[in-house]
């Protein structure tokens, strides 16, 4: 079985500052994928960033970057230069290669304050 844990239910950050969301996971697989999804109040689930477990290089998408520590099974998301539009729930998710289940963490609510 695979599990994903997000230990921070809620975080707030001032506009233009940086916030880091934590995610830890457990899987017996060696080849898998990790994702961060954003869910704004519109409830649309938006893929923010994707990381292949076999790649050591951390993924980056504009202001979003991850710190992937495979041995520690940790996958944190850093949002730089936070914007008001970043206010949302953020979900960490895991799927094994060619797997049949995208397992989600419980989510972290991020509030960006002006």
């Amino acid at each position, binding site marked *: 079985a695979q599990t994903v844990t997000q230990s921070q239910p809620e975080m707030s950050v001032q506009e233009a500052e940086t916030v880091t969301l934590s995610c830890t996971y457990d899987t017996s697989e060696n080849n898998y994928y990790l994702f961060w999804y954003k869910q704004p109040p519109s409830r649309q689930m938006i893929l923010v960033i994707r990381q292949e477990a076999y790649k050591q290089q951390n993924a980056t998408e504009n202001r979003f970057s991850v710190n992937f520590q495979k041995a520690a099974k940790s996958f944190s998301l850093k949002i730089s230069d936070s914007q008001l539009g970043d206010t949302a729930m953020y979900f960490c998710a895991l799927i094994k*290669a*060619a797997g049949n289940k995208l397992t*989600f963490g419980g989510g972290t609510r991020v509030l960006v304050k002006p």
Partner: protein
Amino acid sequence: DARVTQTPRHKVTEMGQEVTMRCQPILGHNTVFWYRQTMMQGLELLAYFRNRAPLDDSGMPKDRFSAEMPDATLATLKIQPSEPRDSAVYFCASGLVLGGEGYGYTFGSGTRLTVV
């Protein structure tokens, strides 16, 4: 941008009625998921299709829920009879999985179901 289309966006129904939710996956995607989101349980996998074949529906209450893909452009999730505890947001997601590689999964906007 390609998108996953779900209908209806909102549905209010009375207990005991049949509910059908529809999903149009992104053209070319070979994998379709149905998820349910509630405050208490978070995001739960209900069913999963690869190349239209159901591969895992272990998360779905079989006595009342059914999921099908009559063709590559349509996935359906049906609840009959519906119960108040089925009230939730139901998401469809599609993705492309080739040779063990998953390229990310695109979610629809969800159907908010309220059973009264």
